[in-house]
């Protein structure tokens, strides 16, 4: 197999898959930070929740994870609305830092509940190994990778359509730009907040399903992704959903490509440390340009 194909099969494609997952998570984090003005620490665990909801659907119906995806997204969106109603809304008019504490509490409550309901064993959507599809003799793409990357593109197009073509989507961007002006303009903030939770949670659920599909399901999977997702949102600029998409892709690709033997034959970075790339990028951004590449907002 040629070097290029090795690069594509083992570095570029996994990078795109990881980037898709980060991007989907980061859009929600960025929107919530932009509109509700706080870092949502339960976002990773919402991803876990989505993944486990899909697991139940897959287990009950024996369906492909793709078919379970919409149900997991809807289920997670509904639960997110409930969480907002009972645990975040009481603080909407208060200091947002209390919301960070509340969301941190929610993160661990969600994870605890997932462990009570689904147990702590490692799970997966399918049994057995699926063969990759082979193109041009040697370009091997796992079927699930095609689904993951393809669905991410579709979901991003939907997000784009929502944010630029629908009244509520435009209002979300308006509130993110200036909450004060949005209120003075007569935009009902509470409604926009609900829409934000539904969109953010649905995308988080999708990201969670994709992680579970690509690897396996663990109750800590979402929490462990929180750092790269925040890093993606910061890289793209807080409150900028398109920045979050790009940021997620950049960090996903950077993590996978950092282990390619660019110089000599050894991996440039030991694979065990590739998730540290996200942290490094984030630290650089915080020092050099906290507003992000697309000039979001610094709070």
């Amino acid at each position: 197999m040629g070097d290029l194909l090795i690069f594509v099969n083992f570095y570029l494609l996994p990078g795109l898959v990881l980037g898709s997952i980060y991007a989907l998570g980061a859009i929600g984090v960025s929107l919530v930070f932009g509109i509700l003005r706080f870092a949502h620490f339960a976002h990773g665990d919402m991803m876990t929740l989505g993944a486990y909801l899909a697991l139940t659907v897959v287990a009950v119906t024996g369906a492909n994870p793709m078919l379970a995806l919409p149900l997991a997204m809807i289920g997670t969106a509904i639960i997110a609305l409930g969480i907002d109603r009972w645990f975040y809304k009481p603080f909407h008019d208060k200091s947002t830092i209390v919301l960070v504490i509340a969301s941190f509490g929610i993160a661990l409550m969600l994870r605890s509940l997932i462990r009570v309901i689904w147990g702590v064993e490692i799970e997966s959507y399918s049994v057995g190994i699926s063969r990759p599809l082979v193109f041009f003799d040697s370009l091997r793409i796992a079927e699930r990778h095609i689904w993951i990357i393809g669905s991410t593109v579709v979901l991003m197009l939907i997000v784009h359509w929502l944010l630029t073509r629908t009244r509520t989507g435009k209002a979300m961007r308006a509130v993110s730009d200036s909450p004060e002006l949005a209120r003075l303009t007569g935009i009902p903030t509470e409604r926009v907040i609900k829409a934000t939770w539904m969109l953010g949670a649905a995308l988080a659920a999708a990201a969670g399903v994709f992680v579970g599909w690509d690897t396996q399901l663990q109750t800590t999977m979402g929490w462990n992704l929180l750092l790269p997702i925040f890093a993606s949102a910061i890289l793209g600029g807080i409150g900028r959903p398109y920045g979050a998409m790009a940021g997620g892709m950049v960090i996903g690709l950077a993590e996978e490509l950092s282990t390619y033997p660019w110089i000599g034959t050894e991996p440039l970075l030991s694979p065990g440390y590739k998730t540290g790339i996200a942290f490094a990028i984030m630290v650089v951004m915080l020092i050099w340009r906290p507003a992000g590449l697309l000039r979001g907002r610094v709070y």
Partner: protein
Amino acid sequence: MDQFIGILNYLIFLITMAGIYGVMALGLNLQWGLTGLFNIGVAGFFAIGAYVSAIMTTAETGKHLGGYGMPFALGLVAAMIASGIIAWGIGRICIRLRSDYLAIATIGIAEILRLILKNEGWATNGARGISNIPRPFETLPGSLAPLSYMILVLALVAVLYWFLERGQKAPWGRVMRAIRDNEPAARAAGKNVERFRIEAFIIGSALMGLGGALTAHFIKFVGPEATDPLMTTFLLWVMLIVGGSGNNVGALVGAGVIWTAWSATELITARFTGDWAVRVPFLRLFLIGLILQIVLQKFSRGIVPEKLPEGRSEVD
């Protein structure tokens, strides 16, 4: 008699751990309660302290970095210094930004540490962790050994409490409060707000490292699960919020109450068997989380509310 000793040892364990959490709660109160700094990476600083002290003091095993056989006290100091240095680095980067960024960066520290523990087996013995960490007074007979350690921990809590109370009444503490309550005014008065914040962040994180070291010596073992936020970070936050953030008595009361509740409910969940034995303990965590939410919403000043100067309303 055996039963009595069993209960006694349990009480000693309970009080020792509550005391160790008390040390860390004082640190978190300094960061959040008094300075408004948001640290969600407590587990990271805890683990740094635990590992540093373990490596410094444990005898040669050939399985991990260490074998220096340093005295216990030196291990504690090294743990605090290591945590403090990491805190300084993070503080330098994030202190000017809003608290959310600091919180994100602190979970980053915990995450990187998790990677190091996982990958650098030569230094940390990987998933098997470091065992046989020496505990002071462990050669004393019977319950006297843990009792002496308990007294040591409580003495540390008392000393730290005394220092922090003095610090708060000193000009340093008054500036801290002024910064938290009205930053622009403090700036206008010519105070170097960043420097004060970094100081509070370093001292608080050093106390978390100290807590990690004390725990490692107490249980004589440290493993990679020390970076798990579920226990350290989460419990500590619940302790501070329930106890009443902003005052040291509240932090200590919270540590005692929540640790007691935590341990007591463990006695109940331990009765479950089979698959449920694994799951039910998490119901306990869920309930602790629920208590946090209820306190945040309904009793935001905690069991021992901060005494506020005249004319100022609640913290939030």
